């Protein structure tokens, strides 16, 4: 499902930035589904008339190299694929984005708190609650192989209006209507 969110986030980004044409997608290529996220992002970008610059960053050195490349060929925004790597280096990424006035969109609220313009993804508290439910079922004797695979059903959109103001982005009514949480 993460790959579908990667595509949806591009749409949301374009809704906040109507003149958006180029987006850098930064992500760890080693996390499961990274290729699908990239493929979905590229497919959606074509449909939305965007140019995608995919930057695989499996480690700190590649992240630094990515920053250098982005300084030379500056995109209009960054889509950050959410995973442990992105969490670990979120401050560095947000500092780079703030320095170059680049809005960042990602999947988990932690990135909005770190300074991303917007995050949209599965509601994490709900996902953890379901995780507890599955653990309970297994402890009560259910076979893990027989338990159904569940897709997230509850999602959350977080807007950081402080970042929006800093970047001079006027967040449209449609985005404010969707928002589950707003940082002001």
């Amino acid at each position: 499902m993460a790959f579908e969110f990667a595509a949806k986030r591009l749409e949301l980004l374009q809704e906040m930035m109507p003149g958006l044409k180029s987006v850098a997608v930064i992500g760890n290529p080693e996390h499961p589904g990274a290729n699908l996220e990239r493929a979905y992002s590229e497919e959606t970008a074509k449909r939305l008339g965007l140019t995608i610059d995919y930057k695989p960053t499996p480690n700190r050195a590649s992240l630094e190299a990515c920053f250098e490349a982005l300084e030379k060929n500056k995109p209009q925004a960054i889509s950050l694929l959410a995973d442990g790597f992105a969490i670990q280096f979120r401050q560095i990424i947000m500092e780079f984005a703030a320095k170059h006035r680049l809005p960042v969109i990602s999947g988990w609220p932690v990135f909005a708190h770190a300074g991303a313009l917007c995050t949209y993804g599965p509601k994490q508290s709900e996902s953890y609650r379901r995780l507890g439910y599955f653990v309970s079922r297994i402890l009560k004797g259910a076979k893990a192989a027989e338990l159904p695979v569940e897709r997230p059903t509850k999602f959350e959109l977080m807007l950081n209006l402080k970042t929006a103001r800093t970047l001079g982005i006027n967040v449209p009514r449609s985005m404010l209507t969707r928002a589950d949480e707003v940082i002001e």
Partner: protein
Amino acid sequence: MSESREASSPEARAGPRSRLAFKYAALMISVMGAVLVVNGLVTMWMSFADQKAKLAEQQKLEAQLAATKISQFVREIEAQLQWMLMAPWASSSLEDRRIDGLRILRNTPAIAELALVGADGREELKLSRLATDQIGSGADWSREPAIAAVAPDRPYHGPVYHQRNSEPYMRIAMVGARRSAGIVVADVNLKLIWDVVAPKSASASGASPMSLTLPVGSSPIPISASCSGTRMQRGSTRCGSRLGHGRTRPGD
């Protein structure tokens, strides 16, 4: 002579009498034992029948409670969908209706996708939590059962289907008093009903399943409750705790 004297002696007479008394005692004990055993069995059977009746009653109450909650769940969604069809809004712009649709998605987590279809069966608007939104795509919905079956006084409740062999979904469609104001179609994730229903299911074994019908609008939804959980079914499909036997969305 001496033998007959011996036979009539008290010791000789005591032998047959004691054997008779023993037989009486054994008979009495057997009869009483049999009575006690039968009484115990009857009591056990009555207790079992009583427990079974109580369990059945409890299951029935739980199933009715679940049915009420499911009915309420569907009605709340229908109440939200009504906002898209109210007359004053019908004359508003597509962007205003889009905002209305986004509000409905925001307020109703169970709705995964929301579409507004014109009276001519052409899609005007499609909002999704996962897929990209479509505005004025003009996709043809005229052959969709939801569009053909829905009427002002009869909301459409489609069959349960599974998206990608995962969660069960149901399509609900509504139309206002004026068909020209459009038809609103929502794909509802029924997993959110499970949160309401599943913990309330009866857990005792040996109880027979039962079923009842939800009075949702004019399209009743039958549900059945069994000892393994309360299930919701429509037509030949049903959603239970195991998935993977699903079918695709109507119209896909």
